[in-house]
């Protein structure tokens, strides 16, 4: 099979979307509008990205445009993390540092060790995959830190009241949140090839690349993603927990706190 998908082929793939719509209608899930919006939005966004990438990966296009795109991905990912856990003061900046650190570490390994060449066709897709996956774990970490500190406020304050610093009072929660946020990516990596055939490899094979070459590319990416997920998650979780305690070791007011103030 060649890697070319004709417009007719793309239209044919919508058959499964039609099946989803039929199921939603039959079961009265009221998801039809969301399904249609997501399909159309995905189509438009990817076509725009495709057109832009065509320009970016052109060897004649200056590399600075690729770097600017990467910067845009980092900023957008930080804004997304901030939006999902608004209770954390300054989370945008924490997310920015976390995603930028992931990009720096990822690129240092990728290009420093010559895994891929520094070109427009590698910079943007690698940044997208690296930060896209890391952002998801960062969001889970930020959301769960807020939830756990709110739900376990009594335990945290019991430790603070013993004269323990905020680092010690929050340590059990931070550990548990980091485990929860990191374990999906670790499980994904474990299930590679058995359950989970990742996107880059599948795409390369569909595009006619030798499967062994596709596997090597995918493995390099998966290891980078795992490192990126750990970097973003740890920086986001530690940054968020720091901002939820004051300098004098008090836990700030949080949504859904059940503390008695009688």
């Amino acid at each position, binding site marked *: 099979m060649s890697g070319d998908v004709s417009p007719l082929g793309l239209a044919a793939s919508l058959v499964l979307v039609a099946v989803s719509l039929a199921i939603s209608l039959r079961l009265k899930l009221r998801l039809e509008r969301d399904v249609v919006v997501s399909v159309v939005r995905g189509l438009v966004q990817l076509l725009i990205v495709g057109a832009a990438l065509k320009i970016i990966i052109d060897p004649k296009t200056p590399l600075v445009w690729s770097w600017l795109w990467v910067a845009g991905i980092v900023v957008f990912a930080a804004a997304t993390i901030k939006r999902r856990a608004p209770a954390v003061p300054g989370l945008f900046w924490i997310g920015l540092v976390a995603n930028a650190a992931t990009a720096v570490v990822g690129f240092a390994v990728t290009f420093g060790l010559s895994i891929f060449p520094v070109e427009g066709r590698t910079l943007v897709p690698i940044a997208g995959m690296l930060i896209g996956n890391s952002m998801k774990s960062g969001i889970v970490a930020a959301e769960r830190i807020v939830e756990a500190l709110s739900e376990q406020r*009594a335990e945290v304050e019991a*430790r603070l009241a*013993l*004269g*323990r610093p905020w680092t010690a009072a929050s340590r*059990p929660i931070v550990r548990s949140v980091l485990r929860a946020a990191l374990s999906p990516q670790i499980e994904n990596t474990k299930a590679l090839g058995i359950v989970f055939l990742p996107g880059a490899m599948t795409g390369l094979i569909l595009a006619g690349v030798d499967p062994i070459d596709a596997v090597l590319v995918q493995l390099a990416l998966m290891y980078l993603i795992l490192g990126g997920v750990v970097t973003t998650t740890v920086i986001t979780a530690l940054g968020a927990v720091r901002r939820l305690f004051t300098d*004098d070791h008090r836990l700030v007011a949080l949504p859904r706190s059940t503390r*008695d*103030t*009688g």
Partner: protein
Amino acid sequence: MGDTAAVPAAPLFSFRSVSVGPSGARRLDGLDAQLPGDGLTVIAGPSGSGKSTLLRLCNRLEVPSEGTVLHRGTDVAERDPLELRREVAMVFQRPVTFAGTVLDNLREADPDCDERRGAELLERAGLAASFLRRDAGELSGGEAQRACLARSLATNPRVLLMDEPTSSLDAKASAVLEGLARQLVDDATPVVWVTHSEEQMRRLADHVLLLADGRVDRSGSAAEVLGER
């Protein structure tokens, strides 16, 4: 720390024009009060009157929006909060035990706590030494609250704050805890006890501070205040 204890005449805590919470939704509203330097002081009042908030100001789990809180004449804002909390210990409304054994819990407060020291602390809280090896999560409510008391005592506090510590306990366990608080007072550790129960206040109080709507309703010795009621 040592110099503060050398001035026994200074009030245990002084609150000067203390407000907590945003304007229009004050939990404490321009409160002025003093807690005496010895004995057992009961802070009482209806739900929402600001009792727990007042107590939490004493060890800086909360800070005032306006006003000043003094401990033995020193502004608590000028104290190291961690040192202050070890000096001004707190037992909460619901017993909160940490994962692990009772001894593990004591070591959260005092990492050097060995079995002998642990047994002493449990004895002061009315529990047998055999509890040291018990899983803290499997204790009854009364046992857990006494384990929490022992844990609070592990920092060698000079003051003990107790925030409605018997509200989740049965009458027998409550009586045990009240007896333990009285014992601490007799051993020269002042206790500040928050309750909404008038009967408990009458049983326990040497001094009384009555709150209503975030302000002081009445305060003084138990004989003065309760004699008027």
